[in-house]
């Protein structure tokens, strides 16, 4: 707020929150046109905050949940050193020759498969229905008796962490509306950090 502004910060808040009398509301509205650009920006922020708080809840969970969360910590497990494993590309449909007579429109999905001693990961890439981006659906198949569920799957775009997913009971995970670029998946599974070789996603999922 500047010293020349005709409305105090507090009055602006009260106005936005409808805490003023009708006469006070009109008084503020009459002076809105005289606001400095700085105060105008402040008012825009207050409105954005007011809109945000009407759309979201910020609440404290029950105390018993707090105790459950604390119990998730196991010091010996936290100190473990993850073994890094690289899963290699074993199949990419984009690198296969097109079948004679098959129209390209039918090849919109791209399949990619990675493999290592611990797991096989099958990935399908399709154009996203809701945007010009791509949807990635994957499934983890353990080679051992280890569970496929609740693995943490990190999607990196270049070196930046772009998204995170968790595998469901069937080992499935997904990412939606992924932009084109070079991507890499990293899975955290028990004592292992499994890194898949990077793959490029052009705008067309067919490669």
């Amino acid at each position, binding site marked *: 707020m500047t010293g020349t502004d005709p409305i105090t910060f507090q009055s602006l808040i009260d106005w936005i929150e409808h805490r003023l009398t009708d006469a006070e509301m009109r008084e503020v509205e009459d002076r809105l046109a005289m606001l400095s650009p700085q105060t105008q920006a402040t008012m825009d922020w207050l409105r954005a905050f007011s809109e945000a708080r009407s759309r979201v809840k910020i609440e404290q969970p029950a105390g018993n949940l707090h105790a459950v969360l604390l119990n*998730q*910590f196991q010091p010996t497990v936290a100190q473990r050193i993850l073994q890094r494993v690289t899963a290699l590309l074993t199949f990419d449909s984009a690198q296969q020759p097109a079948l004679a007579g098959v129209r390209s429109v039918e090849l919109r999905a791209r399949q990619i498969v990675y493999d290592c001693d611990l797991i096989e990961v099958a990935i399908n890439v399709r154009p*996203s229905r809701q945007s010009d981006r791509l949807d990635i659906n994957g499934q983890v198949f353990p080679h051992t008796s280890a569970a496929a569920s609740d693995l943490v799957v990190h999607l990196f775009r270049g070196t930046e*962490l772009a998204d995170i997913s968790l595998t469901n009971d069937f080992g499935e995970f997904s990412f939606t509306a992924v932009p084109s670029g070079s991507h890499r998946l990293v899975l955290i599974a028990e004592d292992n950090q499994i890194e898949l070789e990077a793959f490029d996603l052009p705008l067309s999922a067919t490669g």
Partner: protein
Amino acid sequence: MAISSSDWDLITACRAGHETAWEELVTRYERLPFSIALSYGLSRDDAADVTQTAFLALFRSLTGLSEDTRLSAWLATVAHRQTRRILQRGRHEHPDTLDLIDERLSSIGPSGSNPMERWELVEWVHYGLESLSERCRRLLRALYFDPSEPSYMEVADRLVLPVGSIGPNRARCLEQLRQILQNRS
């Protein structure tokens, strides 16, 4: 761990097996996944499940996180995905409530399709509140995020403040919040 420990300090301490660091992370962030789930209309029980899953994923990923990981955004992303999964499961299990679930699913949207999805708003507000002084945090939570919508009188009573100071304190705390969030962006 000191109250002012950074997220990275806490993650590093957790990796060394310090339970107090984990406790601080939980205290700092337990509202975030819980609130994201609630903001999409999940029950408190389902929101608790989302929160448990988010922290379990965090625990499992501790070793894999890097110093530039924004923990707040990391947890929010996991919570958002878990919320979506529960909503999709509800679509199969409760077809009689399809309209309501579809409305919630459409509001969750694909990540990145909208400049500020609801889960991102929760993360934005949560970050701002957590960055405030304890006094301001308690006041703004009571004024704007308490589901019982207490009056100024009730807030003053709860926080042991003169009722006449609530308005000016609210203005000062909102100004702090504005500066924190604008500096972040």
